């Protein structure tokens, strides 16, 4: 009865949880507690069925009993973590010893609970496990990032194109700098010198231009650039809260890049999509009608699909 009530509240954006537990009454009990809190819950009584379910669906959290009738719970965790490293794991065990717990944590479990536990203890452990998941990105880099080896290759290439396409008049300088930035992601110091040579302008003048215009950056950026609109329409519809959420969750301020080079956070005056405010643009794709929740999801998806993503 209670589960049915809870189903009316199901919200696909709330966390998906898989409970792997061979004792039917315990599994159902835990499932009920979580459903009532709005989580979307699946149950598996054996290790195999857990892995099957896991293959069909994305889960945010696996709650794993270690003692199962078929395979060892630890083995299931290992496979889950290998296939989807972003899945959080919470271990529950009836015969907790420090060693098993430590072993599970080494595999990437975020916490463990030993039976018996209260409903509150259980809920706060679940919440805790999911919170660590949200804070997965690295902190901001305190100093500007080092250039990557491929940067200078790209620069040489684009400078060659520029020499072919342009004649070196001063009126071309902004377009040239834009081309450099599009190719390399930022404008390296050498580029300023070369552009100055090519346009026969003093280096200081080119530097002056590169620093005057908001769009030019002089240091490397991350693989994904997240731009939050701070225009009037977006402002009155809560852009500040979106920005705050990113700052808080990823420990980034506008202009900063995370140490793992995953994200660079920027703000922009307006994208001209004010009718569908608030707007966030990620890697040049405009997302409409954002809120702190949604922006978190967009960034999480990006991180998970990034080949260089390493969960903490």
């Amino acid at each position: 009865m209670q589960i049915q009530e809870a189903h009316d509240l199901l919200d696909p954006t709330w966390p998906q949880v898989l409970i792997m537990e061979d004792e039917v009454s315990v599994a159902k009990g835990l499932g009920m507690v979580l459903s009532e809190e709005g989580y979307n819950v699946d149950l598996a009584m054996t290790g195999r069925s857990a892995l099957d379910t896991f293959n069909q669906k994305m889960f945010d959290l696996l709650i794993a009993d270690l003692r199962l009738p078929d395979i060892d719970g630890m083995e299931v965790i290992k496979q889950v973590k290998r296939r989807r490293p972003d899945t959080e794991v919470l271990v529950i065990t009836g015969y907790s010893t420090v060693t098993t717990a430590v072993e599970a944590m080494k595999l990437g479990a975020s916490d463990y609970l030993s039976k018996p536990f209260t409903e509150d203890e259980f809920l706060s452990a679940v919440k805790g496990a999911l919170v660590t998941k949200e804070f997965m990105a690295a902190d901001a880099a305190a100093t500007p990032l080092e250039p990557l080896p491929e940067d200078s290759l790209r620069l040489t290439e684009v400078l060659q194109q520029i020499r072919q396409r342009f004649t070196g008049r001063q009126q071309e300088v902004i377009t040239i700098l834009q081309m450099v930035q599009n190719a390399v992601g930022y404008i390296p110091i050498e580029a300023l010198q070369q552009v100055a040579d090519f346009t026969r302008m003093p280096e200081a003048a080119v530097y002056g231009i590169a620093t005057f215009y908001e769009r030019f950056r002089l240091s490397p950026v991350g693989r994904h650039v997240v731009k939050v609109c701070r225009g009037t329409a977006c402002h009155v519809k809560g852009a500040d809260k979106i920005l705050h959420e990113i700052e808080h969750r990823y420990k980034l301020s506008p202009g900063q890049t995370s140490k793992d080079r995953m994200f660079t956070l920027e703000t922009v005056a307006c994208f001209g999509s004010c009718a569908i405010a608030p707007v966030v643009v990620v890697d040049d794709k405009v997302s409409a009608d954002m809120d702190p929740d949604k922006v978190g999801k967009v960034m999480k998806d990006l991180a998970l699909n990034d080949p260089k993503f390493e969960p903490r």
Partner: protein
Amino acid sequence: MDFADLKTQAEREWQWLENPPQPLIQIGTGTCGRASGADKVMESVRKTLKKIQVMARTMEVGCIGMCYLEPLMTLRKRGHPPILYGNLTSAKAADIITRFLLDGDLCLELSICTLGEQSRNGIPRLQDHPMMRTQCRIALRNCGLIDPSNILHYIARGGYQGLSRALQMDGAEVAEVIRKAGLRGRGGAGFPTGLKWELTLKEKAEAKYIVCNADEGDPGAFMDRALLEGDPHSVLEGMLIAAHAIGAAEGFIYVRAEYPLAIARLEKALEQMQRCNLLGKSVLGSKFDFNVHIQEGAGAFVCGEETALMASVQGSRGLPTPKPPYPAQSGLWDKPTCINNVETLSNVSAILENGAEWYAASGTKKSKGTKTFSLAGKIRYTGLIEVPLGTTLKEIVYDIGGGAPNGKKIKGVQTGGPSGGCIPASLFDLTVDYESLAEAGSIMGSGGMVVLDQSTCMVDVARYFLSFTQAESCGKCLPCRLGTHQMLRVLEEICEGRGKPDYLELLRGLSETVQKGSLCGLGQTAPNPVQTTLRYFLDEFDRHITDGKCDAGVCLPLFHYEIDPQLCNGCGLCRRKCSTGAIVGERKEPHFIDQAKCSKCGICLQSCKLEAIGIH
């Protein structure tokens, strides 16, 4: 090919569109549409057509202006008026295509209106939709109806007719038509366009330039973007007409880099013009030669100002210079230059096509014609509209815009962006034209209208605009550079609850200094948002300073959320949504907020179905 042939071909193509032998599906793929998922809808439509094996054509169109309904799709099939569907998802689009094309089911529940003169089965016509009823579309005449990357569509709808007419007149005659039409610059200042052209024409020089200002710097405005994306040729035609009038052979379009789609559409349009003999040597066989360059901006608001814009086109930092000399005398490379806004130029092509009297018939005595506005903020129907000048704010906000969403009270509307001001709802009988908005302390500006409701804090709005202008000041003039900074600090202190009663006088004094001591429009108008909020919303400043309260729940230190135990039924929705764990309570018992943990993100306020959470 000469123009007559081109026109015949275009008309044939258009007739095909109006009454297509195979079904035709048009999808709005402007930036708003794409952001709301138009690409996915397009993909789904194509897949569905394959699946149900129906031969049909798909086509991209620009923004029709009903942005709140994006993504939008029009279905044209013989025997039916074209029907517009909105708020689509891939699934809904597939459903409509299947049901309509296989079973002839019009999918009434998903339809919005019909296009054209007929209605069908109770589906209203577009022109009867509340958002459209009082609109009058001149600049936006083709937006959302034609494929912006197909020059033939534009020509079929009367495009380049005006240019061909202009080419038979001399420059002075063309300028005279525009002067008679009473067109004033749509970029903000409202300078008479015909007069500007006459002044530029009068100058003797071996070269002259025409510049289209598509920098659209007002944050919260998007008319120019939609126009460039939806109907680039109407602007380009206007530019050619202007060039011919003043005697320029070269033009520049200065576009914001934040508008990649608009730039792509312009590039495509220029390529087509080249092929149709509308660019290059002897345009349409006349003696007029013309070339256009696209110049991308680089994110500096001040570059919307004419002299700064020209500095930027020439490859320098965008610093304004004193006027005179005016651009008409000495502009780009010291040559006479005429700068016109995107919308101004789109109006120009319509005027040359239809005549000055036709244009002057709408609008007021001093402000002729129509003006586009982008409606955004706390309003039901957000989007792009065009109304005759002289329409009241009330009509725009309530009739066209549908008032505030979810029954909130509208506090006012911000017009003119950082150079404009906030007009309170009590003055909504004001007509929208250059003079009356200026009298109210705001400006018409380029057409951004951001509607503010009771959950907007006016002190915060003033602070917001100052933070914008302070960051965008080029730094050349001391009053602008330091004055805006000082004003911002004062406003920040008020928002943080550290305001003192004499701050208001301080703000008024600083406003005057910045206004009088600044060189360019940015500085001169930067105090406007502060002055209008002080004038119309003084009580909110008082509440912040005297009582330390922000009733709108925006200035973080000046409010907190509380759950009303009488109203709360303990459903726990807010507790689950709260990311800081600040909400506690037993199931089915009233909940409480632990103020120490609360980050005031406001998610609980949105999640509570019983409105039990209040701002205190």
